[in-house]
């Protein structure tokens, strides 16, 4: 197992590269989830205010 993580002496470079890959892609995958939540919340608030204005 330590052989595997050492990667023939290049472990630090390889695992850093894979860490960059995963961190960036996980952030990229989460961004639309947050964006969707924010959009739904904003729109719900807006529609509620509009409904309140229409019925005094």
């Amino acid at each position, binding site marked *: 197992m330590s052989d595997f993580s050492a990667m023939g002496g*290049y472990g630090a470079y390889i695992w850093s590269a894979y860490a*960059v890959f995963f961190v960036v892609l996980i952030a990229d995958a989460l961004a639309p989830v947050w964006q969707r939540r924010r959009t*739904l919340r904003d729109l719900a608030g807006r529609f509620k205010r509009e409904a309140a204005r229409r019925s005094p």
Partner: protein
Amino acid sequence: MNPLVLWFHKCGSPPYFYRLAGRLLPWLYGAALVSGAIGLYGGLAMAPADYQQGDSFRIIYIHAPAAWMSLFGYAFMAANGFIALVWRIKLCETLAMASAPVGAAFTFITLATGSLWGKPMWGTWWTWDARLTSELVLLFLYFGVIGLYHAIEDTRTAARAAAFLALVGVVNLPIVHYSVTWWNTLHQGSTVSLMGGSHISGSMLWPLLTLAFATHVYFFASVLARTRSALLALESGKDWVRNLVMQNRSVKGAAHV
């Protein structure tokens, strides 16, 4: 009209596309995860070490697929931008703008992993080699498109202005691709080729192709997810969005509508 053309027209309708993308998304994420895991296992554990580069070559399994996606993402963005400019299709504006951040993410991964590969193999993190420089220009083009899109208040005007910038930047794509042939600098030539055959053994190649598949599927998953929420914001005056938002509120805490 024939059924295919009819279906294509239907896809251009935001509510239809929103639902279609919602149905596709779990499958796309699932396929990307499974094929990505298989490819990573093949690349990190099963493929033999390179005779010259030892184990350091294993960075190729993320570097090359990310680099392909940086170009593919730009081409996809520009193609949708072109359709948006010529035929004013709202969906294509949204798709083009949704692919910019995903493409930029892949471009950043390409530059960072390439740097981490360059240090042990070339002895430097960075050099102004033709391939590296043109890939950096590609990242700046993505930033330009994203920045311009966010700088203009009206979403549709912003998308068309940014699409125009994206189209101008297409000139950089062949430069990135052929840079290793046109200029004889540090970056190695292509290992894998669609036509002329690849210079890599099968045991090293299949994980690479599997990861290329995984990143393509992931790209579309991310673009569709971004497109869905962008469509909600863009069509906020329409009944289908109002119904969907209200329905989502009434089943708060339940699964996504």
